[in-house]
């Protein structure tokens, strides 16, 4: 599946981890070409067998390995992202996924491989109307950052979807009578952002 984006979770600093073990982890990352990875420093948890293992790794060693891992993960992710510059991708327009979108005059969406793409809010080639979250747009990738892509230039195509319709209905709905709610339609105004990807402190 050459078009698949594969991500993973990696813990560094497990008790007994040697420098050689850790370098093997880096090798896996390089060979696997992960599109991204959630990375963690091992945390001793009460009641787990690992908490009792000998050779717990010193915190400064764990931290150093972690930083080296992050560098490799970022380098690989960025390389993989760079391969997509110049390609056309179809995105589902998202909501709440672009912190800087207002300032950069962009919207955000995700491709079929879940990659995050910030695209220019230029709708001149699609009749001028803005896509809604849930609609599908086709854009051309112009720039790769380590953990996202940018697609500047006019949006090439727009496909309005039932999801976009559902989003529009939701945001137009008046605040309901609180006593009668079971589906919890949100109030008028800026819709709630999509839940973040898991980042646990």
């Amino acid at each position, binding site marked *: *599946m050459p078009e*698949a*984006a594969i*991500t*993973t*979770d990696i*813990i560094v600093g*497990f*008790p*007994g*981890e040697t420098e050689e*073990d850790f370098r*093997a*982890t880096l*090798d*896996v990352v390089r*060979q*696997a*070409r*992960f599109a991204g990875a959630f990375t963690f420093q*091992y*945390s001793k*948890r*009460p*009641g*787990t*067998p*690992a908490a009792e*293992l000998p050779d717990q790794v010193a915190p400064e060693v764990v931290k150093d390995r972690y930083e080296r891992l992050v560098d490799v993960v970022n380098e690989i992710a960025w390389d993989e992202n760079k391969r997509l510059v110049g390609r056309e991708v179809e995105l*589902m327009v998202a*909501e709440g996924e672009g912190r800087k979108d207002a300032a950069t005059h962009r919207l955000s969406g995700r491709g*079929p*491989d*879940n990659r995050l793409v910030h695209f220019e809010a230029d709708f001149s080639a699609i009749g001028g109307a803005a896509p809604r*979250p*849930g609609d*599908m747009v086709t854009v051309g990738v112009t720039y790769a950052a380590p953990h996202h892509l940018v697609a500047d230039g006019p949006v090439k195509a727009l*496909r309005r*979807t*039932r*999801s*976009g*319709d*559902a*989003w529009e*209905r939701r945001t137009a709905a008046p605040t309901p009578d*609180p*006593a009668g*709610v*079971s*589906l*919890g339609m*949100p109030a008028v105004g800026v819709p*709630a952002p*999509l*839940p973040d*990807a*898991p980042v*646990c*402190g």
Partner: protein
Amino acid sequence: MTSTALPRTYQVRTYGCQMNVHDSERLSGLLEDAGYVAAPEGETADVVVFNTCAVRENADNRLYGNLGHLAPVKAKRPGMQIAVGGCLAQKDRSTITRKAPWVDVVFGTHNIGSLPVLLERARVQEEAQVEILESLEVFPSTLPTKRESAYAAWVSVSVGCNNTCTFCIVPSLRGKEKDRRPGEILAEVEALVAEGVSEVTLLGQNVNSYGVEFGDRQAFSKLLHACGDDRGAGAGAVHQPAPGGVHRRRDRGDGRDAERDAAAAHAAAVGLRPRAAGDAPLLPAVEVPRHHRPGARGDARGGDHDRHHRRLPR
């Protein structure tokens, strides 16, 4: 609560994984069903609910820090209630009310549905309520739900984990794996698609082993195929097999890609084979802690190495 009183407001603060985000949608749904309304952005709510994480130590520290910040807020606001649920509640139980006596309710991972009743009981009896169950009785999936997104949805396929990864506290807090029946999952997906959702993320502490409870090792790939065949919408897939892993399904609206993508996801899920010593690096997306040293096979920890292999679908 009289009919002339203003409705009480609530806020749910969610930490940790996507399963917690899913569960928080149920907490919100339960509270709104009971007459609470979401506190406007920036306002302190009458009821603050922490849905917590215990996977790493800093998650512990974060909760108690946050509870400390709320103590003076609550002192100035008679009638305010604080509830703590999720994995850290399941772990610490009444230690939470001992360390933070201003907490009104502690509930765990297996009794999410009890929140409104516990809040009421705490209010009436003016006494903190701590209720922790030892195992899951009802899937949170079935509880009233307030979905945050119009186009994307979380759907739980299972809760709990039967693995024994030596570093992980989650099985002790989420319990043994319990699987939802495929029919129920697909019914939920169909209903969501009918409402306009086109991106569904299947959740579980360990989605790869879905079906272990009813003895079908192909169950997850069958489920992916069924979602792909779909209930009218066609699907694309991005698959992330891992403990706590999730699967994304995207509606590209054309249906053509559904079979290919579901099959591709299936291949990713079931194409992994057990790893032998000296193998080339692991296929991505399976993290195996490199704690095992050759020759240590006789002891319990050596056994863990084999268990990592067995939990991969074949």
